[in-house]
């Protein structure tokens, strides 16, 4: 365990997988709602990983393409060293934009680093603002 | 719309016994008429030109699930045939399977004004109509596949022909089609389990009926309903060496059925006959048995055919005969689409390259020509390529030239496989050349006659006929087609004028107007109590076995822009 700047480095080279959830589908047309954020700004982790690395509430997920804060949620059917974030704006902050020459970004199997954090989960509007202006 | 007069052309209108006469054609309100006032009319000078009724396509795959799946599978085919958009025209794509716009434009450029889509899986009929409604210019119609219909097969097994008639009527209405079509009857159901039927007396699994029984029963139904066209059949055992026996057995299977209407004698139209006329026992010794088909057609009136002429080059095969496409895939190992349609039919798609260096391709190429050259009554055989199966329809001009020029055939025969010796092309067909009158038959007159669309104004130019006319750059007085096949090819590739419903749609080979045509549909009437009994059975099929609810199945009327209900002549049993 490595303490650094109030956050804990728990592991690197964890694989991130994104995908659909019914609850996310239910709120497909209601994405600006709090309910959507509660369902989609979530990182499912195995309890072993959560315990080992002292994850309580939020985590910062970081890949070479970006980082995002989401709420951790225990799911023991998820294997250790693999985390799941439902498809949606939060996952997209860290997935691989490169399309491998075929138009498809890499939504599954991205190497990420996960750290426990006390930072808040951004609401959609603020998350979108992070893409505005600036340079590519 | 202004009146029109096409002056001084040489008119070929074989259905009206006009075998090339200098004659004016007048059009008023979209229809051919005796006389108009010339000073108010658009005048087209056709002096030294050939004038024919608009071409009629009796069998092609131009719209619907399978055609689109073929397009989707072949971006390389789309790219090869690209044409940018014009002032009036949308972008075209495709070299063997064309997008909807290219389909409409390319047929119109060749002088064709009426098109029939030859295979509609009932469950996917809405798709066919969505595409047909986007094909510009031509009038259109479609054939519904009844070959492996579960309830149909059950009725046949139980001998319930009345209910089979009611069922057929329901499917025609639900799919907004106008012809009953059969592809590999019984065989597609077997293909649902990876099997096939080869002989007409084999039983399909579970349903225990044979191709012969299926065709015989539906032929009878077809006559009772008084549909204008006979049943339209793609025989079992397509494309296999030695299949001519199956073909003749198929013809004989409906020999006992009497025509239900007096305006045609045919009971069965066997499509793309070329693919069904093989002798031999394997791909090496395959030979032409066109003579067997020719003799049968020459001496029987209950069967008519179209050519399914194969031309060398790259194309795409697509058919409801899923089992046959899988066989092709096993041979070529090229990419393969299959789509079996629940309770109804199947389909498959494979790209193909026909080569003059290949024995079987050479035999196939010869057979189509043999059929057209040797069948005596040219109103029993129509020119087709089973587009895009044996060649894209854009090859029609070359086929016309091959039929009109033995010189061209002789030239080509020098460059093909020696299997040509196992055909009649170098021997019995030597020197036979079709006339422009013959061509006017096999490209429009015959089609209109076989489909019984003469009264509806297609395929001829007598007063009352549709104002659909093609003017070709051929002066019959000066034509030496035998020596100048290129002139024929160029003329038929690009009509000087194509006139559709009295409107000029093509001028000098270029599209100048893109009106939308009509869609022909058939709505047979069925006795109410009979219909009710059938619907109880059909509802049960929908509730338990279809994946779509019955209420969402029939094609809504909004899918047809300009529907046109064709008149039927039902016999007494059903009316």
């Amino acid at each position, binding site marked *: 365990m490595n303490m650094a700047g109030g956050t804990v480095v728990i592991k690197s080279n964890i694989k991130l997988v994104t995908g659909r959830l019914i*609850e996310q589908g239910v709120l497909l047309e209601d994405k600006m709602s709090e309910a959507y954020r509660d369902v989609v700004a979530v990182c499912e982790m195995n309890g072993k990983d959560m315990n080992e690395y002292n994850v309580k509430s939020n985590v910062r997920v970081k890949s070479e393409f970006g980082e995002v804060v989401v709420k951790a949620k225990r799911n023991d059917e998820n294997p250790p060293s693999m985390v799941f974030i439902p498809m949606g704006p939060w996952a997209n902050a860290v997935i691989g934009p490169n399309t491998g020459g075929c138009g498809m*970004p890499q939504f599954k*199997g991205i190497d990420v680093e996960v750290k426990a954090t006390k930072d808040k989960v951004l609401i959609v509007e603020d998350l*979108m603002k992070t893409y505005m202006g600036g340079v590519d | 719309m202004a009146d029109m007069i096409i002056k001084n052309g040489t008119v070929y209108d074989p259905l009206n016994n006009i075998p090339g006469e200098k004659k004016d054609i007048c059009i008023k309100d979209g229809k051919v008429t005796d006389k108009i006032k010339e000073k108010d009319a658009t005048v087209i000078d056709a002096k030294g030109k050939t004038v024919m009724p608009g071409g009629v396509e009796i069998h092609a795959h131009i719209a619907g699930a399978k*055609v689109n799946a073929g397009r989707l599978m072949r971006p390389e085919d789309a790219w090869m045939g690209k044409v940018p958009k014009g002032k009036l025209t949308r972008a075209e794509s495709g070299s063997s399977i064309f997008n909807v716009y290219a389909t409409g434009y390319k047929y119109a450029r060749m002088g064709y004004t009426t098109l029939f889509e030859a295979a509609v899986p009932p469950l996917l009929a809405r798709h066919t109509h969505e595409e047909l409604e986007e094909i510009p210019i031509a009038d259109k119609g479609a054939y519904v596949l009844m070959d492996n219909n579960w309830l149909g097969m059950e009725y046949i097994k139980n001998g319930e022909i009345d209910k089979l008639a009611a069922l057929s009527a329901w499917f025609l209405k639900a799919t907004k089609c106008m012809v009953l079509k059969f592809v590999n009857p019984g065989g597609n159901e077997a293909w649902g389990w990876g099997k096939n039927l080869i002989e007409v007396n084999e039983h399909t699994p579970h349903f225990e009926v044979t191709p012969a029984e299926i065709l015989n029963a539906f032929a009878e139904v077809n006559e009772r309903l008084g549909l204008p066209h006979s049943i339209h059949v793609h025989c079992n055992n397509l494309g296999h060496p030695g299949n001519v026996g199956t073909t003749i057995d198929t013809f004989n299977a409906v020999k006992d059925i009497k025509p239900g209407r007096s305006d045609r004698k045919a009971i069965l139209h066997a499509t793309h006959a070329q693919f069904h006329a093989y002798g031999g026992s394997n791909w090496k010794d395959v030979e032409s048995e066109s003579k067997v088909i020719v003799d049968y057609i020459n001496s029987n009136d209950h069967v008519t055919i179209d050519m399914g002429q194969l031309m060398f080059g790259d194309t795409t095969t697509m058919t409801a005969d899923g089992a046959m496409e899988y066989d092709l895939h096993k041979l070529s190992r090229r990419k393969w689409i299959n789509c079996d*349609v629940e309770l109804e039919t199947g389909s498959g798609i494979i790209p193909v390259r026909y080569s003059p260096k290949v024995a079987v391709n050479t035999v196939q190429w010869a057979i189509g020509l043999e059929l057209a050259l040797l069948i005596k009554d040219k109103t029993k055989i129509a020119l087709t390529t089973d587009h895009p199966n044996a060649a894209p329809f854009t090859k029609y001009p070359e086929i016309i030239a091959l039929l009109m020029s033995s010189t061209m055939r002789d030239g080509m025969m020098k460059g093909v496989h020696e299997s040509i010796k196992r055909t009649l092309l170098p021997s019995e067909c030597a020197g036979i050349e079709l006339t422009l009158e013959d061509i006017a038959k096999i490209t429009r007159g015959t089609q209109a006659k076989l489909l019984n669309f003469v009264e509806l104004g297609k395929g001829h130019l007598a007063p009352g006929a549709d104002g659909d006319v093609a003017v070709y750059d051929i002066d019959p007085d000066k034509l030496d087609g035998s020596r100048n096949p290129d002139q024929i090819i160029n003329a038929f590739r690009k009509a000087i004028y194509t006139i559709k419903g009295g409107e000029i749609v093509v001028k000098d080979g270029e599209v100048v107007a893109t009106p939308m045509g009509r869609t022909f549909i058939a709505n047979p009437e069925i006795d109410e109590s009979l219909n009710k009994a059938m619907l109880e059975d059909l509802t049960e099929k929908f509730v338990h076995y279809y994946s779509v609810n019955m209420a969402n199945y029939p094609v809504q009327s909004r899918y047809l822009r300009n529907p046109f209900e064709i008149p039927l002549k039902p016999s007494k049993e059903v009316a």
Partner: protein
Amino acid sequence: MNPDSTIVTDVVCPLCGSLCDDITVRIENGKIVEVRDACDMGESKILGHDRIKSPMIREKGELKEVSYEKAVKKSAEILAKSKRPLLYGWSSTTCEAHEKGIKLAAEVGGIVDNTATVCHGPSVIAIQTVGLPSCTLGQIKNRADLIVYWGSNQSQAHPRHMSRYSSFIRGFFREEGRKAKYVVVIDVRDTTTTNVADEFIKVEPGHDYKLLSALRAVLADKADVLPDDVGGVPKDAIMNLAERMKKAEFGVIFFGMGLTQSRSRYNNVVNAIALTRELNQFTKFVIMPMRGHYNVTGFGQVLTWETGYPYAVDLSRGYAWYNPGETTSTDVLNRGECDSALIIASDPGAHFPGKSLKHLSKIPVIQVDPYHNPTTEFADVVIPSAVAGIEAEGCAYRMDNVPIMVRKLIDSEYKSDEEIIDDVLNKVMEIRGGK
């Protein structure tokens, strides 16, 4: 019951690619008040959500309400002066709207693409490489005795699929329903779909291609070269699965984004299709992509008959050019190659990578949608539309390419997508004609 109450049966659900057509709704006073037989996602959509109230144009960073005419005019002006506009979305609207949209793209010389680009676009490329032995869903319902879900979490993405078409449904030759079928799930993790399987095969992320090749090698009698473990799957399990596949009477592979979105992307699908194809040497086997949006398949159909290609079509040179990896929306945006965008019936704000959104924030964006969503944050013009399949009718294609007409159930104060696009198209022609 309320005397104004109307019951409508056989309603088609405009949510996912299963396109269930057996829904019943109750309508009172022009509002849908009850939905029966739909899954939670479908029910939620049909009952409705907060709507964008009015057309809007962004001024000084804020979206301001404007008249419909003004929004249409502004949209047309943006598109008419663009050198390479991107017209993206389309998957949650009707084929009739697609036709108009493609015509608009042809008129303005732009790129037209749909959500397949981030869903089953790779499956399309795979079909173009090897084909697709498949069938309609009823065929599977009536015949299948072996069902394989590969990288596809059915129970979450298509909740009624298993009970309507695949695992649980009784069919003509499968009267026993679930008992008559063997169900295998292949995935990188346990999901709610694996819970209802007879067998779960866990593969390491990114190793599906190798596992598929291994299965093909077994079919080709080359099992001897295989190592003891491929992608985390023991050789025994591979041999057993291959044997089970060969012995099935009618087998099917349903695959999802576990194949299309992971390493090797479309090549995973190429390999899965090749495996299916080769299984036909032994028995009957089919394969089907689990398409997401209710009409993502329909857009592919319409674009194909209109242009020859199913998605990612660049019409800027007057003819159609298709090249995923170049003309696909995420590439065009990631590379910053388009100078405006029209987004309709989809939400790239929620479903595109951050890099793509950065370019979206720099160019004029027109949004046509019933709902406020993350894409609205980037929009410079917003035109609210009727909800296709609830307030407007038209054709949609199920995941197995079966076309079904979605209904208009209630009236809307908004125009349909089809009408809106037509209005924009006419305005563009007017602007161009006036040049």
